[in-house]
């Protein structure tokens, strides 16, 4: 049993890092980054892969030999119906019954459509999928997704691929406070600092792709993010000191006398 495990729908994970498989410069760098991240959960866009023959797939062929928990995503879906159809394809392939729901309509912001995301979550949870919806940072919606059967809820810190970091820490902390399922911060993070910040807010994990894949040194960045998750998690659990306006000497007068 790993120390401080993350459990999602009965599956125990020792890593809190969920890594995307897109956008790496080449398979060599991708493999190095995945290895350095120590991630157990890998996500990929269903529309991009060869579900019929994953061993032949341009991306998956390099990772199928390991024991990863695959988290296929419905990226590109514009409606709940589309997301559901794609999700069923992935499940039928036998690769995974986990699904990241991603429904976007705006081609510039790729912000998740709340209504369609909720609909797809209801349908797929009902069908027995382990559903992880990508959502905006709306606390009410996050709760509704949980009630609809989400195994974990994945609010974005900022729009996908922007690296803008945590735009609304207040909303994220409310989501975390209210949640009874794991909260994985998905999208918009840029650096190790952002990762530590959300972990200190009490997030259960982080999903990212672009900040690692597009870094100058993806493997080193993957390691940095892994350490940041760890640092933020430990800091959160250890309990930070309250902020004070004025100084308190760390060695008091009593000790020096």
């Amino acid at each position, binding site marked *: 049993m790993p120390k401080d495990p993350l459990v999602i729908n009965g599956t125990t994970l020792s890593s809190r890092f969920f890594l995307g498989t897109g*956008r*790496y*410069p*080449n*398979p*060599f*760098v991708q*493999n190095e980054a995945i290895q350095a991240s120590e991630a157990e959960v890998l996500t990929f*866009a*269903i*529309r*991009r*892969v*060869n579900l019929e*023959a994953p061993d*032949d*797939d*341009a991306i998956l*062929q*390099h990772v199928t030999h390991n024991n990863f928990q695959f988290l296929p995503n*419905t*990226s*590109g*879906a*514009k409606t709940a119906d*589309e997301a559901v159809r*794609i999700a069923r394809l992935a499940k039928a392939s036998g690769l995974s019954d986990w699904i990241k729901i991603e429904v*976007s*309509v705006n*081609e*510039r912001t*790729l912000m998740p459509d709340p209504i369609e995301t909720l609909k797809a979550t209801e349908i797929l949870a009902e069908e027995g999928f382990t559903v992880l919806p990508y959502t905006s940072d709306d606390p009410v919606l996050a709760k509704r997704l949980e009630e609809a059967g989400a195994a974990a809820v994945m609010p974005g810190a900022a729009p996908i*691929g922007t690296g803008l970091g945590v735009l609304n820490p207040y909303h994220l902390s409310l989501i975390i406070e209210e949640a009874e399922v794991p909260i994985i911060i998905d999208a918009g993070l840029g650096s190790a600092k952002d990762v530590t910040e959300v972990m200190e807010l009490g997030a259960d994990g982080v999903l990212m792709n672009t900040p690692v894949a*597009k*870094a*100058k*040194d*993806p493997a080193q960045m993957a390691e940095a993010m892994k350490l940041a998750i760890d640092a933020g998690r430990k800091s959160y659990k250890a309990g930070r000191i309250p902020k004070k306006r004025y100084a308190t000497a760390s060695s008091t007068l009593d000790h020096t006398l």
Partner: protein
Amino acid sequence: MEEHVTVIGGGIIGLAAAYECRRRGFSVTIIEAGEFGGQASGAAAGMLAPFSEIEEDPDDFFRLAFESLTLYEPWVSAVQQSSNTSFEYANTGSLHVVYHEADQLALETRQKWQGDFGVDARILDQSALQKLEPELSSEIIGAMHYPEESHVYTPDYVKALASACANEGVTMYAKAGEPRLTRTTEPYEIKLNNGTVIETEQIIVANGAWAKSWEETLGIRIPVHPIRGQICSYQPDTPLLSHIVFSPQGYFVPKANGTLVNGASEDLAGFSTEVTEKGINRLKNWGPHVLPALEEEPPVHTWAGIRPATQDGYPLIGEVPNLPGVQLAVGHYRNGILLSPVTAAVLADRIEAKSDRVPMTLFQPARFT
């Protein structure tokens, strides 16, 4: 005395650089360890397709690739004239085909940002696509059509470039092994295995996937590693395509000689150029999803090449710190053929102390050091 330029590496980038420098009036020597034509160069399918290849990033790499595409036509004419040969340069346009309705959003995103650069990008539905390419599988639901994308027949292009260099008076050494830099102050001195000594003011290191071996000499980290690409070609009785077709699992390029080139894998196999059953079967299994007629069509030819991949996906182009006049031009990965004219032009511009035609900071060779 005219300034001397020595190019190390006789693949597409080295040959292009040597030719361009010679055209600008420098005296030029090119040194190739094996045979001219390189390890990726002659094996490549020759697509000139920056819009299909670069899906998501409106960055300086896209600008570099786009610039090279616009340089291609005059570049091809010059090479053909200097070499006294012709080679296939076909403005067929390309189709980036998709299989899921969910791909529509990605096409729209791409059309939007590429449109800002003035790229002609047209989204086609299934019926419009079938009219352009009737042999395509009905599994395909649509495509992005880029009328400006083209391709060259690389074995002939590389040969023509080598002849062009020879005809224009470039001194050429093939099968020269690994040359050594024997004097590291100007003028530099390069020694070949056969004892020849070359004195030179300018050096261009363009040895592709083998660039790492120059790390110590140049004093910088060069994270370039080999990725094997396996390719096959078909010889259908009648042509199946008139455009380049990109699919999620491979591309197809119809050549004027009637062959249909289908590639490519991205294998981690070191410097091996062996063709494997798995690598070719992967292409064969996928083929009918693009062109059902390939179900009955065995490949007539299979081969493999080594591409120079880099840590961040961008090539290393430009001066090496502390060695004035020494430039690196490696790590072009899948885009060496496309990027050959712009790389040659930028290198020669720098030797002439002209300003860069496109932003080049992203490609600084010392960025990993």
